[in-house]
């Protein structure tokens, strides 16, 4: 019934390659998150404070990013733009796809965060003579940041896992690299089992680092 013979040797031989590819995974996810946070913040503020075309643009972004499969979003930057003659490298396809997706989700987290800080905090700041910019950057946003900190961590984990879709647009990050070796040796189960463990360890490291950072940042 169960006569599969495990062969781990080829996987172990390629382990250095897999670990190297996981650095690429981490790099593209972190970059997508940094861009996603900046864009998400802008999208949230646009949706909270502006009307007209900019509001529609931001809302369309958030709606599409949150309500369509991440894979389709990636395909859009790959095959979609490709159909119009714009050929991006696999790296940029994944970076842009992930950024698009993360920005949409983070925008909603930020929007909730801004709404959770009482309006009166802004009034109190302004009554002290602060400009709107000072009140936002010194009083409101630091509080928003704490509210969205854990959702941001979740999104970071999600970005790492989601980057595995990169293998479907020919990106040799961790999953793409695994696929490459697996298809050469046919030890598909063994390769992906090891890769799963690597993903698991990466996520655990992110969560642990996030917890340590939170303890340092939020003493109130």
């Amino acid at each position, binding site marked *: 019934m169960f006569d599969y013979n495990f062969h781990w040797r080829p996987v172990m031989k390629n382990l250095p390659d897999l670990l190297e590819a996981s650095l690429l995974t981490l790099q593209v996810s972190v970059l997508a998150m940094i861009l996603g946070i900046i864009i998400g913040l802008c999208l949230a503020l646009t949706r909270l404070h502006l009307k007209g075309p900019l509001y529609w643009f931001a809302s369309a972004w958030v709606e599409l990013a949150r309500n369509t499969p991440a894979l389709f979003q990636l395909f859009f930057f790959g095959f979609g733009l490709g159909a119009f003659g714009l050929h991006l490298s696999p790296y940029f396809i994944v970076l842009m796809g992930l950024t698009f997706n993360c920005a949409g989700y983070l925008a909603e987290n930020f929007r909730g965060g801004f709404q959770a800080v009482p309006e009166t905090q802004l009034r109190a700041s302004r009554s002290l003579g602060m400009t709107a910019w000072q009140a936002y950057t010194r009083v409101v946003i*630091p509080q928003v940041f704490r509210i969205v900190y854990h959702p941001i961590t979740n999104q970071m984990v999600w970005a790492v896992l989601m980057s595995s879709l990169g293998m479907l647009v020919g990106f040799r990050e961790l999953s793409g690299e695994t696929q490459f070796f697996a298809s050469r040796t046919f030890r598909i189960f063994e390769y992906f089992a090891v890769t799963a463990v690597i993903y698991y360890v990466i996520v655990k490291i992110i969560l642990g680092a996030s917890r340590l950072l939170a303890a340092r940042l939020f003493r109130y």
Partner: protein
Amino acid sequence: MIEIRDLHKYFGALHVLKGIDLDVQNGEVLSVIGASGSGKSTLLYCINGLEPIQQGSVIVDDTDVHAKGTDINKLRTKLGMVFQQWNSFPHLTALENVALAPKIVKGKSKAEARDIAAKQLIHVGLGEKLDVYPSALSGGQQQRLAIARALAMEPEYMLFDEATSALDPELVGEVLDTMRLLAEEGMTMICVTHEMGFARDVSDRVAFFHQGVMEEIGPPGQIFGDAQSEHTRKFLANVR
């Protein structure tokens, strides 16, 4: 000196202030009393420009608060404000709460700002709590923190918007004591309040607001002892 002339304020169709004329002299303590919704808190927001006005003017030391060219942020450093919901900044310690505005608005150095902050916190009796976060302070302590924060800007006027209304009864006294202390030091104060004892004992004048109109203004003895307006007498009969 604060000069308010024919001040009208609307929230949409709602006419909240209906032509207020009022002068507040330097060194004076004015208490503003009246039912909720009578426009007394809105008056304070119009004085420091947190709310725009639709007609009339507010002049603070010869500067028109609502004129186009006015540097409102600079003017607000003269007008300290204390809110009903004390609004301490939860992510900063007591000292940082008070030092923030002197540092970023007035451009004081870090050390200067800390000195000012520590001095004002000691002033309001929070000298032991410099490095404590607001979450570890009682409501009364947080309200005194808010007073220290306003004082650190060295304002010439203090606006109190029902500073004790959100406090547990046993914490009201410490905040009123702090306000008394300021009054004794000669601070010009406009206090919107439901504390009739404070209004009677500490104020130079008391103004009674009713449905957006300043019905009556005068020394506490007159308002509490010999009110001219029917509405004033009715209000005072109910709050006692």
